[in-house]
Structures are given as C-alpha cells and as structure tokens.
C-alpha cells in the first residue's frame, strides 16, 4: 500500500471539508477500498473516515413512512435494526459477505462502489430509493450509471439512503461461492402502485430493472407470471463462473423464487 493520511471527522460538514483536500477519498468500512489499496489500484493522499460520524449511522423511520439509513450504517446494523421495518432489505443485508465484513462494511460504501455483483444496488433500485448526499438527493433510477459508475460527483458523500417500504419484498441471491457476492441476485418489491424488479450480478451495465417482469408481476404477482419471460444473454457478464446465457436463465429462476418467497 502507498502511504496516506487518515482524517477522522465527527460531522458531515467536517468530512465534506476534508474531502476538499487534494486526492482525498472517502473511507467507509474499508471492506472494498482497503483490499484495493493493498493492490495499489488506488493512491489517495488522504482517506476521510466516515464511520465515526454519529449523524451518518443508524436506521429510523421518516415522517412519511420511509426507512432512512445513515450512509455509514454497517450491513450488520441494517440486518438487525431494519428487520421489523423492512424485512426484505434486512434479509439482504444479513447475507452480504460474512459476519466480520458485515460488522465493518457500510451501505454508503456499497452504493458508492456500485460493484456489478453487489447486493445493495438491487435493493436501492428495486425499492426506488433516494440516495441523499451532502449536497443533493438522487433518485435510484438516475443514480446507477453502469458498472462501478454512479451519479456521484468527485468528493460527494452519501449521508443517507431512503427506502419506500413495499407491501412485500424479497431478495434472492445465487451465491458465487468463492467471493460470496451474487452470481445473480434479484430484488422484487410489490408496492401499491406496481412491482419493481432489480437485477444484480448479471449485466455488463451493472444493476438494472427488468421491466417485462415488472409489468407481468404488476398484473399477476405469482411465480407463474414470469415463467414465460426470457432475457437475452447477449449483454450479460460471461466469465469462468457462468456464461451470459446461464446468467440470463438464472435471472428468471431467481425472480420466480423471490416472488414465491415474498408472497
């Protein structure tokens, strides 16, 4: 690892100021960034640690009934504290990586990273969540812009994520056993206004909404409703773990399972 300074601000305002330093980078739980630094794939001059900022940690319900999660809240805390408020989301958090990873890794870090096989992007897009930063609010539909690419500007910090709570929801993850990330993961959420289906792990463009499945499920919320649908494997990730066609098929299977489990 190249050397860097570490700043540990106690407020979002101080963190934002520290991010103004040259080559500064945010440090969430470090569960992605520290291994990346070990490989010398990044060389920040200063890391701004966000995990000591009390106003960025915790789970609560807003006045309009959304579940609000601080950007530095760990996966473990979401699994525990959102369990009664939004079980589908808490269930997803409880299966990210392993217990030690969940005790450090944060929702803000996961969404900022936008790994094409990460779990949280599916929940955020599948819930139509709002990503709140130190400067603005971004709708999930505008936030994810392809593999490892988001709407975040240089130095912008995710301070909170707000989730409208669905009537029922479920996340089904086909685990890639070596990394424990999703080989394919599907988040299904049924709202009064319709069903949202978000898919991670599959597309070369990162997390996406499967609109045909959303339409079919909005009129008939059953696993049978998606049985006849199929996706093309053309733009799917193809690697030693599975071909694009295999992943495309898995999307259908995991969507059906998520619907059955949610209903």
């Amino acid at each position, binding site marked *: 690892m190249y050397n860097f300074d570490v700043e540990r601000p106690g407020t979002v305002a101080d963190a934002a100021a520290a991010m103004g330093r040259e080559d500064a980078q945010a440090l969430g739980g470090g569960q992605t960034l*520290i291994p990346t630094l070990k490989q010398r794939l990044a060389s920040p001059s200063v890391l701004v640690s966000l995990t000591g900022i009390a106003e960025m940690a915790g789970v609560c319900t807003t006045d309009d009934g959304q579940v609000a999660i601080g950007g530095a809240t760990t996966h473990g805390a979401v699994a525990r504290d959102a369990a009664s408020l939004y079980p589908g989301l808490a269930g997803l958090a409880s299966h990210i990586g392993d217990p030690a990873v969940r005790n450090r890794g944060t929702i803000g870090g996961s969404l900022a990273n936008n790994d094409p096989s990460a779990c949280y992007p599916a929940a955020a897009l599948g819930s139509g969540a709002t990503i709140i930063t130190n400067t603005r609010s971004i709708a999930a539909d505008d936030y994810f812009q392809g593999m490892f690419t988001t709407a975040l500007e240089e130095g912008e910090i995710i301070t909170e994520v707000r989730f409208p709570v669905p009537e029922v929801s479920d996340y089904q993850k086909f685990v890639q056993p070596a990394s424990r990330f999703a080989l394919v993961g599907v988040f299904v959420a049924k709202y009064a206004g319709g069903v949202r289906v978000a898919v991670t792990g599959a597309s070369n463009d990162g997390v996406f909404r499967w609109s045909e499945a959303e339409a079919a499920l909005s009129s008939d919320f059953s696993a049978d409703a998606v049985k006849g649908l199929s996706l093309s494997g053309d733009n799917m990730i193809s690697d030693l773990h599975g071909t694009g066609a295999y992943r495309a098929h898995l999307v259908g299977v995991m969507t059906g399972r998520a619907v059955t489990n949610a209903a």
Partner: protein
Amino acid sequence: MVQVSMTVNGRASSGEVEGRTLLSSFLRDDLSLTGTHVGCDTSQCGACVVHVNGEAIKACTMLAAEADGAEVTTIEGMANADGSLNVIQQAFQDHHGLQCGFCTPGMVMSAAALLKENPEPSETEVRDYLEGNLCRCTGYHNIVKAIMAASGQDVSSIAAE
C-alpha cells in the same frame, strides 16, 4: 505518523503508526501479538479476526488509526486468567478442530463472537457464521463439532470424520 492508543486484551497500548498501517500490522509488529495471523491480501480468509469493541472484524481490513480509542481483544486475550485454555480453545483441542493451526486464532475469535450472539447455535448456524473463515486442513467438520461442544451441546451423534 499518528499516535494511536487502544486497550488490547485489557492493557493500555499505544504507538506511532503510518496512515496505511493495518490493525493486524500494529498488533503483530508493534505489540508483538503474533497470534493474529494474516493469510491473504483479499479480506477473505479470516485468519486475522479479532474483536473491536466486542465485534468480530478482520484486522487486515481496518486501519490501526481507525482503532484509536477502541477495546481490542485478540487470541492472546482468550485464555482463562490462570493461563489454561478457555472453553472454546479446549473444545478445539478435544475435538481435533485444528491441524496446522494457521486458521485457528480467527476461528476461535469468530466462534467466540457467535456464541456471544447465539449461545446454542445449530450446526447450520455455525457453518453460516464461519463463511469468512477459511481452513485449508480440517475440512471444517471438527471445527464445527468443537464449537457445538463449546456451546454445551451434545456432539456425540456428530460422527468424527
């Protein structure tokens, strides 16, 4: 360089570290607590698991500077006050939960965190909890058995393999 102070196994410990110094390096190189092992560069093996403020974390994936002010427990802090093995360690010995022993410190620290959360876990719960702890020798079976035994459950029906 930054000054860090933390309580490690009940003792006040401090030192000067670089920003990039990992907690695992601080424990091993500065405090000579070499029981915390480092088995990978990818945060996947779990040989380095310690407790920070009571929670299991991978010491290779946390900066020493982030642990400033924290309570840290390592494998060296696990034995009973008289130096004898604690119940988890003893169960690993009794049930052959280790072979080369490289993964064992992390296994014991993860097991201790599990039993604190869930005093009587099922076999599936033990296996799930150990997802981030890799062992290249034992095939896990006797590790799982040792942890079940340490929780006070009867393991006589779990066949030795």
